[in-house]
């Protein structure tokens, strides 16, 4: 079952960059996010799965759709006419290299024992500094967006 879902993620992501209509491309990206969330559930990461679905397939897509409606849904930009075949050939070469070139073995030799029992403890007691750092990321995002959309210009009052 998993290989099929992985294939769906890859196909929908590929479609998202090739469709001419921006709105359809973004909806393909959303469907690919939902499939990725399902894979996260199956791999035993329910929190990451729900976050992926609700944030990426929800919030980010809403932002995209807002922008597309303000900017113009049709892809007015004339894309270079590189055919899809070129992309598939590059993909084939790259995946051959990837399969036979890189051999990285994932042996998580955990240097620390797992002293936390459930996800809540890992998140809040184990990685607390990350939570503080996320506060700074969110502040930065809020202030930058306020700065970009404000209407006062140079020499303006």
């Amino acid at each position: 079952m998993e290989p099929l879902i992985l294939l769906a993620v890859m196909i929908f992501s590929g479609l998202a960059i090739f469709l001419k209509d921006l709105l359809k491309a973004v909806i393909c990206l959303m469907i690919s996010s939902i499939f990725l969330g399902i894979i996260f559930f199956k791999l035993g990461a329910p929190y990451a799965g729900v976050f992926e679905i609700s944030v990426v397939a929800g919030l980010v897509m809403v932002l995209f759709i807002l922008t597309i409606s303000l900017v113009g849904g049709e892809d007015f930009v004339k894309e270079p006419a590189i055919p899809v075949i070129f992309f598939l050939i590059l993909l084939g070469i790259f995946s051959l290299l990837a399969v036979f070139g890189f051999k990285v073995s994932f042996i998580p030799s955990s240097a620390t024992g797992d002293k936390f029992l459930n996800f809540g403890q890992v998140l809040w007691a184990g990685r607390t500094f990350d939570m503080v750092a996320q506060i700074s990321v969110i502040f930065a995002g809020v202030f930058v967006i306020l700065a970009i959309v404000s209407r006062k210009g140079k020499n303006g009052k």
Partner: protein
Amino acid sequence: MYAYAVFVLIFIGFYCLIARRNMVRLLIGLEIISKGICLLIISGSYPSKILTAQALVITVIVIEVCVMAIGLSLVIRAYHQSESIDIRDFSKLKG
């Protein structure tokens, strides 16, 4: 198997960044790269380190949301100022 999917996703993301000119599509490409990295973190740490990996992935998703939001507001302002969202039009600063 998951490693293969991760490679393909990252490749698709980078191809989108290189070969597409619409600003919104560049941001779609960035999003696909982040998806690939999240899949790498979670699939590689199954089943022993899955809790820590989830915490990392949640943080990565939050950061990506902020970057996307800033990128999209820049796209809106670029459209306001010059009616075009083609990245090739923005090469006035070369030289």
